[in-house]
């Protein structure tokens, strides 16, 4: 193996308040500003600031041979601006080295591709403008929310001008094939498909601190040897940026691991690449992916966000409002509706493994999936009320969620 490609996902949602039926019509603030600020400050301190520092140091110490790609959601960027401007500043410092590539995605980290292509395009455009204004980069690589991917997405995104798209290298789409080569989707003409090597990525992101794992403790030396022994174009190491210091706490040794990993890889003549570096590499094969694949859970499908009736219902009721929301021409209403689209809100409603008391819980600000659904639907009722006020008479589609009193 000659190449490694690091891509880190940076995302924070605007978490919602606990919103009761008594708030409908009397409280138009849907977001838990205090909690959002507290979480942003905590994660900045434990994760973003120290890991950004480390990456900057590594780039300098390797004379720019170490390089990484980031996808930072609009909702994270806005919260950096609002609560932790020093984090945004440190990303700008990183960007100055020239060893950083920014990717495109939906501004609000949404599932819009599955519900409205028009809304999807608007959000991707919105995000691109934000990246250009902050970092003066115009991305040519696209990653969809939670690495959700199928044939159709490749087709749509290619038409939007992107050259490379990322996806999960799930077994059920690859079969006997290796994720370490460049592919092309069956429906695409040119856009290259890069697949996450989930085994090696998850060794860092999930298994690193697991003392029950036979490879524990994972050293950078050992990891570099595994990479080196692999065949193919590139090993794609895709993971949440919060892996460093948040999912894997500092005392697990994750920072020390990262501190030496680039040198151990370089020693074995392995280079670091951006996803865009593969835009012209000849694909080894076509992949035909009908049903959407994602990087979530063991199922690697959509069930984390659309696996039960509450999730399906909440999403449907939300997207049904698109026309009505847009016809208000009220930027505040439109922005609220978009922030409600952030996929995390639906992830909190997930009941998979709930009875087992599972990992989803750690990231869930609610007591239960049911509580998050009730809050969300109450908020949606209030939004409908506001839309109706704005659109007096002009809005004919009657949402099914209206309560008797509102």
């Amino acid at each position, binding site marked *: 193996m000659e190449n490694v490609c690091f891509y880190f996902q940076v995302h924070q949602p605007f978490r919602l308040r606990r919103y009761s039926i008594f708030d409908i019509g009397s409280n138009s603030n849907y977001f838990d500003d205090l909690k959002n600020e507290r979480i942003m400050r905590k994660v900045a301190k434990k994760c973003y600031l120290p890991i950004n520092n480390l990456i900057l140091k590594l780039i300098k110490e390797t004379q720019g041979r170490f390089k990484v790609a980031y996808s930072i959601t609009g909702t994270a960027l806005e919260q950096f601006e609002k609560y932790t401007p020093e984090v945004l500043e440190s990303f700008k410092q990183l960007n100055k080295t020239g060893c950083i590539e920014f990717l495109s995605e939906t501004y609000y980290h949404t599932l819009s591709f599955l519900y409205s292509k028009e809304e999807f395009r608007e959000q991707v455009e919105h995000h691109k403008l934000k990246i250009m204004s902050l970092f003066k980069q115009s991305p040519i690589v696209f990653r969809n929310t939670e690495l959700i991917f199928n044939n159709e997405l490749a087709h749509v995104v290619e038409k939007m001008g992107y050259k490379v798209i990322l996806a999960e290298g799930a077994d059920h789409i690859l079969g006997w094939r290796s994720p370490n080569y460049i592919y092309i989707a069956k429906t695409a003409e040119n856009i290259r498909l890069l697949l996450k090597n989930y085994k090696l990525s998850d060794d860092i992101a999930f298994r690193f601190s697991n003392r029950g794992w036979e490879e524990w403790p994972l050293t950078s030396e050992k990891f570099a040897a595994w990479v080196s022994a692999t065949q193919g174009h590139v090993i794609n190491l895709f993971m949440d940026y919060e892996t460093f210091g948040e999912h894997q706490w500092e005392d697990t040794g994750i920072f020390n691991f990262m501190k030496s990993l680039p040198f151990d890889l370089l020693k074995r003549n392995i280079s670091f690449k951006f996803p865009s570096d593969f835009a012209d590499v000849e694909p080894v094969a076509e992949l035909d992916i009908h049903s959407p694949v994602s990087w979530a859970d063991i199922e690697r499908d959509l069930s984390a966000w659309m696996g039960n009736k509450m999730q399906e219902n909440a999403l449907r009721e939300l997207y049904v409002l698109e026309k009505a929301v847009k016809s208000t021409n009220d930027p505040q209403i439109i922005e609220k509706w978009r922030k409600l689209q952030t996929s995390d809100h639906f992830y909190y409603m997930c009941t998979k493994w709930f*009875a087992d008391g599972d990992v989803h819980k750690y990231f869930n600000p609610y007591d239960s999936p049911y509580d998050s659904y009730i809050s969300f639907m109450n908020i949606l009722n209030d939004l409908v009320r506001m839309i109706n006020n704005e659109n007096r008479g002009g809005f004919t589609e009657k949402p099914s969620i209206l309560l008797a009193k509102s």
Partner: protein
Amino acid sequence: MKVLMFGWEFPPFSRGGLGTACYGLTKGLTNNGVNVIFVVPRGAAEQGSHVDLIVADRLYIDNPKLKLRLINSPLFAYQSQEEYNNELKKLKQKLGPGFNEEIYGRDLFDEVEKYSEKAKIIASFEDFDIIHAHDWMTFRAGLKAKQVSNKPLVVHVHATEFDRTGGNPNQYVYNIEREGLHAADKIIAVSNYTKNKIINHYAIEPDKVEVVYNAIEPNKDMQIKRDIGESEKTVLFLGRITLQKGPDYFIEAAHRVLQFDPNVKFVVAGSGDMYGRMINRAAELGIGHKVLFTGHLSPKEVKKAYQLADLYVMPSVSEPFGITPLEALNNKTPVIISKQSGVSEVLKNALKVDFWDINEMTNKILGVLNYPSLNDTLVSEGSEEIQRFSWDTAAQTCMNIYSSLQTVGI
């Protein structure tokens, strides 16, 4: 292994969860090969058309592992002083000149003592390895059995006097509970919630208390429920109408729900000392026509009530375990449960509220009634989850406790 068990009530006729729990546990134990000598007050056994019901039940016939011992006594579970006196009067009328004053206690507490003397006699001629006593009325019986037999005593706490009285215990009952808890070789609590009460209010070492959660028998003959076209939704309260069960919070929440949605009906099923007060309160709030009081329901009616309801609410002020939410889910009805309950420690697929938080209760009731997907998900996930609550597992935990006491050789 042979267990001398002092139990209460025979389902299907029972006044509450205690009878259901004794029945389930006994069934679980005999299924696992344990011999049980089940001692109950005849008063409880003969309530209603009882004897026939017992005979009709598979647990009690053709079960070589179970031996019934009835004690002549008008005691039944959850009985108050007043209720005992009424039972005694009824008995007097029924027996006429055959009524022997000597046999029965002057009052409830006297009777509990008499009952334990009779239990002692049973313990002196029956052959068993362990004594297992359920709640305070049988603690004295368990104690006497231990004295006469020298066998280990397990006391099983389904509720403490603090739960029943909202923190104003009757001193006499408290003393019996405390004596039983201290004399026992091991204590079984129906939840950590109850375990903490035992540790804090009765000065018991935490290591002496083990938690064994109650369970449920899966409902095999569950029929497709309710008419979807029904425009009026039904919210159910089911339990004793007593301070412990929080009926007053239910009525207040009903009042608020109706301000949002007049198409809701509230059913209060059960009887108890707050019955009249609750009817008055509903009238006072102007919702008398929206709240139906059914009085005590037969087991068949209980089942029907669960099935007709769109939502079951258990707003208990202090609920050691709380089997009813499991029964509701067993009948495909979603549940809102008080956080001040043992069942909320283990049941995940339920909505949970603090019993005093009437606004949140209102919010959640309206959530279930207005958002059908919430109802569907609670029911589909919840009825699957309750399959994990098995009496066999509970019985096995009890058996481990029995064995540990035997090997220590107490």
